[in-house]
């Protein structure tokens, strides 16, 4: 019997590539959807599964688009403030929500990679939005123009 080593930043990148799903369900629930018998989010087919979920969002697109825009704006604000404690706490929250599948990448490594940091901060904000009362996230989002599908 020979298994892969589970976990990895691959899962983190997979989440970052599908922000609409995270915007709707949050990080933990999205990861839970990706659990296969052998692990969370590393098997062939996992990305396709996530893309299929994202494609099926349908009527929820307006909500996820609004949350994504708000999350990107909030993440940019965190980066601009450059408060080390705030950034570290946001990364820690994101990794914690991701769970066992994200234990092989450290806070320091994410903080040192500008692109990955921005993605993780967006995930952090999306996770917050997914768990916040709906009216609060909608209020914080900019007006949506030509975004209906």
């Amino acid at each position: 019997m020979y298994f892969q080593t589970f976990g990895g930043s691959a899962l983190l990148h997979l989440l970052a590539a599908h922000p609409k799903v995270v915007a709707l369900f949050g990080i933990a629930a999205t990861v839970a959807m990706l659990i296969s018998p052998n692990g969370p989010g590393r098997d062939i087919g996992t990305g396709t599964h996530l893309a299929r979920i994202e494609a099926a969002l349908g009527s929820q697109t307006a909500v996820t688009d609004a949350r994504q825009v708000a999350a990107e704006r909030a993440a940019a604000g965190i980066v601009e403030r450059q408060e080390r404690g705030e950034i570290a706490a946001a990364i820690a929250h994101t990794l914690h929500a991701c769970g066992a599948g994200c234990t092989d990448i450290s806070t320091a490594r994410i903080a040192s990679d500008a692109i990955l940091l921005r993605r993780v901060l967006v995930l952090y904000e999306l996770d917050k939005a997914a768990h916040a009362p709906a009216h609060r996230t909608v209020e914080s989002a900019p007006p949506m123009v030509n975004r209906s599908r």
Partner: protein
Amino acid sequence: MRRSIVLMALVCGFSASVASAQNVMPPPAVVAFPGSFWISAGDAGPAEPGNMLGQGALEQGLTVWQDGGWFLIPYVGVSMTADSQGYDWNNKHPTTVAIKLQRRVANGVIFGGGGMMFERDPATGRERHLTASITYWSGWQGRSRANAGGLPLEFPGSINATAGRLTGRDPENWMSSVSLQQGVVASRWRGLALVPYGGSRATFDTKRRVWENRVTSDAGVKLTRAVTGGVVEVGVAQRHQYGMLTHQSSATTVGFINLWIGWNPSATSHP
């Protein structure tokens, strides 16, 4: 609307986290097809000097029930073993049709099950045998405290314990093995990791076969690389083997290459 129904089904069981999804609808079924393929090739070790051994296995299952981290999976497995010196016990291709109950646990998995194994027993000529086993596997990257800041080094490792009726060539024999491997990532370059490691594997059985009661220990170095859906590793090691019944020791240098690929495509049935 139809797509929304499919979506809600996909997240059945996660309702606490999806309160903001607003609508609760009847769940259609999600059917997953977990499978894996692995190959392992290298020197057989000091018990068979100069013998090259190759093994491969393909398993395809169907998740018929899932509840959180629990999975019930009927599956078919085929495997193949061959060696360069043509020993009978190293040249076989058993097929297994079985069912297993699998539980995802932190950084690992535990599963048990049983079924039928199709492999000729040279002693009796029988081709079909009942098989049953239980396995625990856990792997770690050694950065489990990454959320709290992490360590500067990575310590990947794994533990594996298996017990059961595992071969049709000795179908009444209950065999067990426990293995532990621990490494340290010495360097990383473009997705490759150089990992010096140490490992040990103990096997024993109820029939007291000389070849099944051994402790095999490796000290070596390997290159590992994550690939889509799995991992590949190539390495060399100094292998030491101790026979627990014969009280004899031997050692040799071995090379190896291992590949593991897993998949879990899924399909949703619309209500």
